[in-house]
């Protein structure tokens, strides 16, 4: 351990605190908002003195949105479930397809391999709207519009390139000689892939999966165009909070808190795994 003076320790603490405040304050404020009514939220000047209420959460869970003008039906829990299902299924499919593909691109240089890999990445270049309008016509013809299958398929545009390119880099970092050593010791290439390459690239696969999950979770435009209300994720469902009698900030805040929760839980879980994987041993050299 490096020697540190007291002053350095204090300064370091202050710097860390500033960073934490900077990043955490909006989330903290949203959490406070979720416990307030619209009236206390919109007070000028804002204050942290208020009577906490769980009415926003109650409204989301019961599906009844009480505004000053009327009582509206919302389907937030359904949206939340859709988000979880679409993101998990999309990432799972992308991992299933992307990881073996990434291994192939990393280990085998075949004719056109770079072109194929680049084409897959280029899916991310096109503005989504440009792709979506013709795609929605095709989907309607094919019966894929407003289906989970169709959405998961389109979500591959987000997840697959991400996983492919990140995981490929991890595979390339593993010395091929480790795999050769395993192969001369009497194992087929497939068992080498499973027993050596996959575990060694584990942290990379986890990181790529997590990133893909976050991107899929935050996607808005695909589901807005291609899905109807009962298949839409929270990102689209949040539009329901913009009502005739104003924007329901309290419920939006509560919805944000509830929709952050799954991603946060996954990130915390994966973080533990990432650290574990990395400390298993250096791969290079």
């Amino acid at each position, binding site marked *: 351990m490096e020697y540190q003076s007291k002053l350095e320790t204090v300064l370091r603490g202050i710097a860390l605190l500033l960073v934490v405040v900077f990043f955490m304050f909006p989330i903290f404020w949203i959490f406070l908002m979720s416990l307030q009514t619209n009236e206390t939220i919109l007070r000028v000047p804002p204050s942290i003195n208020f009577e906490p209420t769980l009415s926003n959460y109650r409204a989301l869970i019961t599906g009844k949105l009480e505004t000053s003008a009327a009582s509206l039906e919302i389907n937030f829990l359904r949206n939340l479930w859709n988000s979880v299902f679409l993101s998990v299924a999309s990432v799972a499919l992308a991992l299933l397809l992307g990881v073996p593909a990434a291994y192939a691109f990393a280990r085998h240089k075949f004719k056109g391999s770079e072109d194929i890999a680049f084409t897959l990445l280029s899916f991310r270049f096109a503005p989504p709207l440009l792709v979506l309008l013709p795609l929605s016509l095709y989907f309607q013809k094919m019966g894929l519009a407003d289906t989970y299958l169709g959405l998961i398929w389109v979500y591959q545009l987000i997840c697959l390139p991400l996983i492919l390119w990140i995981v490929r880099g991890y595979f390339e970092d593993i010395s091929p000689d480790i795999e050769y050593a395993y192969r001369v010791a009497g194992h087929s290439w497939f068992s080498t892939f499973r027993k050596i390459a996959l575990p*060694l690239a584990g942290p990379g696969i986890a990181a790529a999966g997590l990133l893909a999950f976050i991107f899929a979770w935050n996607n808005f435009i695909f589901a807005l165009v291609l899905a109807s209300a009962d298949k839409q994720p929270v990102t689209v469902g949040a539009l329901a909070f913009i009502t005739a009698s104003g924007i329901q900030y309290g419920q939006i805040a509560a919805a944000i808190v509830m929709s952050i929760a799954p991603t946060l839980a996954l990130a915390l879980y994966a973080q533990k795994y990432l650290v574990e994987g990395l400390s298993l041993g250096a791969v290079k050299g």
Partner: protein
Amino acid sequence: MSDVHLDIQQVDKIYGSGDAAVHAVKGLSMAVRKGEITSLLGSSGCGKTSTLRMIAGFESVSKGIIKLAGRELNNLAPVKRNVAMAFEGYSLYPPLTINDNIAFALKASKLNTKEIASKVSEVAEMLEITDILGRYPSSVSGGQQQRASLGRALVRDADLHLLDEPMGQLEPQLRALLRGRIKHYIKENGLTAILVTHDQAEANALSDRIAVMEGGYLQQFESPQKLKDHPANLFTGTFVGEPPMNVFEASVERDSNSVRFELDNDVCLTYDAADFSTNVIQAALSLKHVVIGVRPYAIKRTSNGIKASVVANHWLGDQSHIAATLAGQSVILVEHDRAPDKSGDEIYIKLDPDNIHLFDRESGAAISHGAELAQ
């Protein structure tokens, strides 16, 4: 030869294609006997590692045939070749301890746990890594990882053991100690091994025969002694031996009873015609221009010799290396006593005909070694 174990026949390795193609190994043919230790010796890029990887099955064979224990290897997957390999980059499995790394390859064999443990501990003891058996590769030094990787290869009962620069990361003292032990282990267990190295001392100490490679070609495949005494060409002559062989270009003249080699700056080496066989003199005269090679330790001082001026003199603890200028060229002498010469001193030396190697200046092929014609 009936006892050929590894048979490499006219093998080529070409990487890439078209303009970017790299021809790494060219028409390589060599036969290794069972129980023999062979070194592939050469500088970087000479094709030695490519050869090893073709034998192991990590690179395809572009042309030719490789046979091991009577089986053709060309289209066999690495798993079916029954070869063991120690990698230059160690390539230990990070999630396994050193012990498990070494034992790993044995688990596929029919040995029971006790036999595996005893084999691992035998190899670990030989390589002096017993104390790190319980640790993970990431927590031990490069030299220790390298010995573990070597142990993982040696512990196996394979048809052929391929060792790619197996001691490159070890400190010199340990290297010297392990050379003897490894050779003993290989011979004791009747293993056949191919060692890739650019370290001559290692190749000399370990090998029964050394294959010298350069530019993708096999230059010579002989015992260490024969390589030194009878280099097949100028490359082998200058590459093998430390410090390297001194070489001088010369034109050959003959009088009635003497042979003269004219060097640059009017320096002339004159010998009795009887010092060389007539075949040697004829061969040298027919070429007119030759290259004279003489080993540093074969240059002797004599009061009536030719004059050379000393440039530097290093005492290495057991021998003196004297660098001097002769006929406008550098020449190195090795003497076992501490030489008193300083830079600028003049010394008088002679090149005994018995210690002279003659090479064709154009092709580099050896003409003669001492008085006799090269084969």
